[in-house]
């Protein structure tokens, strides 16, 4: 008899795990759970849904028992056996017990509703990159600090996009007017190709991509020392007032600019030059954008940019001599921590020189 009841309980437990049961029941819950919240007071509509649930479970169980040939009496007996009282079996039978236990049913529905909401949020986040403000304002969904961080991130993304666009505009301009710039950029391509080992035929874009990926993955872990180096790089080339008086923002800014740099590593020098120019204009009180400047000013600025690029190229050549294959190390290592350290040393030197240049440039522009 004991064996008999054990078999019956196991059989029904098995049915409760089978698609014949799981699909209709889950389907029901997913469709009906949206009205369930975890307010203390219950809505009248819950009762209606609970009734429907009861009917569904009864129908399913009844047809299964008929199919397998378990009588209600046998089932009753089996349920009183000690085996049916074990914790594992009790957990499996929870959806059945929920037909008679409204509180249990409600908790299952509330849980399901929350699961679906979280899923929806995740999908939204994946699609848009971030959540709309209306969904992040909730007190318990996100801390104030996280919200602040989100704001900073948005600001940073916006700025870096602006910078990139500005740079592109300037680049196309200078490409049109002076051929030398494009020559220098193609020179750089050559240099970079020489940097990579000859056997490797991966296109440079891919190298850039992978290095960027690894960089961003490292970044995701919030690594301190690297961020440190970037902060320095940052202060060298980015806005004079750190993110409009947002002290905590500077670190995030530093971290986040790197992917941009990673996308266009060859342009980092000219980007820096543009930043300096921008800075200089601002300090000189020229708030107009580059294209609004007079032709003479534009030309002068371009000359300076060109000069800075040439300086940068020289520095790169110098660096290439000192370190034959830095790019290879960078792209080959999954986590380019050692390579980046060396680079940051290099960068320090370069930055110092750049800073001097920037100072000179500033003086010149301001004097005018």
């Amino acid at each position, binding site marked *: 008899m004991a064996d008999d009841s054990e078999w019956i309980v196991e059989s029904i437990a098995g049915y409760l795990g089978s698609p014949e049961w799981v699909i209709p029941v889950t389907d029901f819950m997913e469709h009906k759970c949206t009205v369930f919240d975890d307010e*203390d*007071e*219950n*809505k*009248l509509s*819950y*009762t209606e849904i609970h*009734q429907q649930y*009861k*009917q569904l*479970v*009864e129908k399913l*169980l*009844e047809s299964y028992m008929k199919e397998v040939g378990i009588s*209600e009496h046998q*089932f*009753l007996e089996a*349920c*009183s056996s000690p085996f*049916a*009282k074990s914790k594992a079996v*009790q957990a499996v*039978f929870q959806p*059945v*017990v929920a*037909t*008679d*236990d*409204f*509180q249990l049913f409600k908790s299952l529905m509330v849980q399901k509703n929350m699961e679906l909401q979280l899923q929806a949020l995740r999908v939204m986040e994946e699609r848009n990159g971030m959540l709309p403000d209306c969904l992040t304002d909730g007190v318990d969904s996100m801390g104030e600090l996280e919200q602040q961080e989100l704001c900073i991130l948005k600001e940073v993304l916006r700025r870096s996009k602006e910078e990139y666009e500005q740079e592109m505009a300037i680049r196309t301009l200078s490409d049109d007017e002076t051929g030398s710039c494009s020559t220098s950029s193609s020179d750089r391509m050559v240099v970079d190709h020489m940097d990579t080992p000859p056997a490797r035929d991966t296109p440079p874009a891919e190298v850039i991509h992978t290095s960027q990926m690894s960089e961003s993955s490292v970044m995701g872990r919030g690594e301190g020392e690297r961020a440190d180096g970037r902060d320095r790089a940052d202060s060298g080339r980015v806005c004079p007032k750190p993110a409009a008086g947002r002290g905590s923002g500077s670190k995030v800014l530093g971290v986040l600019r790197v992917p941009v740099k990673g996308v266009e590593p060859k342009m980092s020098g000219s980007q820096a030059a543009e930043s300096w120019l921008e800075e200089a204009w601002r300090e000189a009180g020229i708030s107009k954008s580059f294209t609004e400047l007079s032709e003479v000013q534009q030309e002068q600025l371009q000359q300076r940019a060109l000069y800075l690029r040439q300086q940068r190229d020289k520095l790169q050549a110098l660096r290439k001599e000192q370190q034959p294959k830095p790019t290879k190390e960078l792209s080959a290592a999954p986590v380019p921590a050692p390579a980046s350290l060396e680079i940051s040393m290099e960068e320090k030197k370069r930055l110092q020189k750049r800073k001097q240049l920037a100072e000179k440039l500033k003086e010149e522009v301001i004097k005018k």
Partner: protein
Amino acid sequence: MGEVQKGLFSVIQKLKGTTEQELRIVLLGLDNAGKTTLLRKLASEDVNTITPTQGFNIKSVASNGMKLNVWDIGGQRKIRSFWKKYLENTDLLIYVIDSADKKRFEETGLELSELIDEENMKGVPVLIFANKQDLATASPASEIAEGLNLHTYRDRKWQIQACSALSGEGVQDGMNWISSNILNAKKTT
């Protein structure tokens, strides 16, 4: 369906395997009678921030070794038609009356007699709380009992209890009546 439901019901009782005595109690009455306040009082919760119930509240309260599952359903006119959906398998009806709301004594009497006539309420004991006795204008319980013609109830146990859900006075007396009358009656069946 009735057969299967009964079967399933007993299956679940077996599955739960609780040896504790459980009572299903429905708490009804007109809006503003004090049902939710009474429920909160029974559960020893705060009674100062109660708003009109739009749906229903459930609380499980331990009392005299029993587990009371008390269902408090909103009493506004527009949702009174839902009451009968909650009467199935009910062991006891608690009906709450605002003793100071004389203008609606007739209305509350009508609602009660309608409930009593429900099929699912056949033979189900009734405990009536003559609530808000803390108000000076409250009618005494005996007067209310007379107005409700309680003495004509012959098919069930009934009791009227003066109380103040706000202060808690008289509430325990009502609970004691439940344990001594309903519990014993249930054991014998």
